[in-house]
């Protein structure tokens, strides 16, 4: 087998943490925040 389930889980957990931290570092959370605190026109069907 190429990889055990445990190895795949650990690899994915590490990838998740690294991606999250990289996204935080380059400021993606601010984009998320600014979208999330305002009325999403597309979501509610205004356009």
């Amino acid at each position, binding site marked *: 087998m190429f990889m*055990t*389930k*445990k190895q*795949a*889980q*650990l690899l*994915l*957990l590490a*990838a*998740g*943490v*690294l*991606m*999250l*931290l*990289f*996204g*935080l570092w*380059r*400021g*993606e*959370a601010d*984009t*998320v*925040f600014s*979208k*999330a*605190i*305002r*009325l*999403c026109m*597309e*979501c*509610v*069907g*205004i*356009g």
Partner: protein
Amino acid sequence: MDKKKKKLSPLARFRGFIQAGATLLTNLHLPNFAKGTLYQGGGKYVCVPGLNCYSCPGAAGACPVGAFQAVVGSSKFRFSYYITGILILFGVLLGRFICGFLCPFGWFQELLHKIPSPKLSTKKLKPLRYLKYAVLLVMVVALPLLAVNELGMGDPFFCKYLCPQGVLEGAIPLSLTNAGIRAALGKLFTWKACILLAVIVGSVVFYRPFCKWLCPLGAFYALLNKVSLFQMRVDTHKCVSCGACAKACKMDVDITKTPNHAECIRCGMCMKACPTDAIQYKFGLGDQSNTETTKE
């Protein structure tokens, strides 16, 4: 078999309460429904695990699907490592347990399914399951990334054209208290309201049609269901191959063949149906799915 002697997991036993609690926690800012405003605190930096519109007045966090599209469709970024990382962590830890226990829209569909009516099986509609992967790939990733305006910004296609949560949690409560929003609703709202209506009617006769066929978040978690730490375990020594679990499963999964099938939302209906208590929840690294592969 005497049902009182069944050793049913508290998770499965109290699933309805957990779903209600998760929906409340996800939409904790209840006074905003009366005020017609949105919560604007720090919780919105983080996304919630289930499908929950961030334009819901009570929303305590960001919608993961909406947030991903907002980042990808912005002029600054082409991909969201932040949201993908959060979703990978949610998915690897819990898999589609999130769909079965924590998603407000999943719970909404389940409540609708309790309305007395003729119920239709989805077993013959299994190919429609693959639609949700197309929705994830096309409407959530590709279109917001590629169909951009002159500023390099893309629309959140899933939120704009398909997601019924925005109407249910956003447009309806906000338009009740805000005349400006009510006046601004037009053709797009009518289209999305029709989708919501179709999902509502569909949910009464089918079990969780949106989760099965259209939800991109369910699709993402489904991809990680096989490797999630939260797993289903079938004790092959106890199993009598009666088929009661497969018959009870409303997600059309035979857990004895594939304990961690992509469609399994860990609802525990198979556990309730099993006459020998052969099915259990397990949480941990490695393969815990059956006694053949797990050494205790």
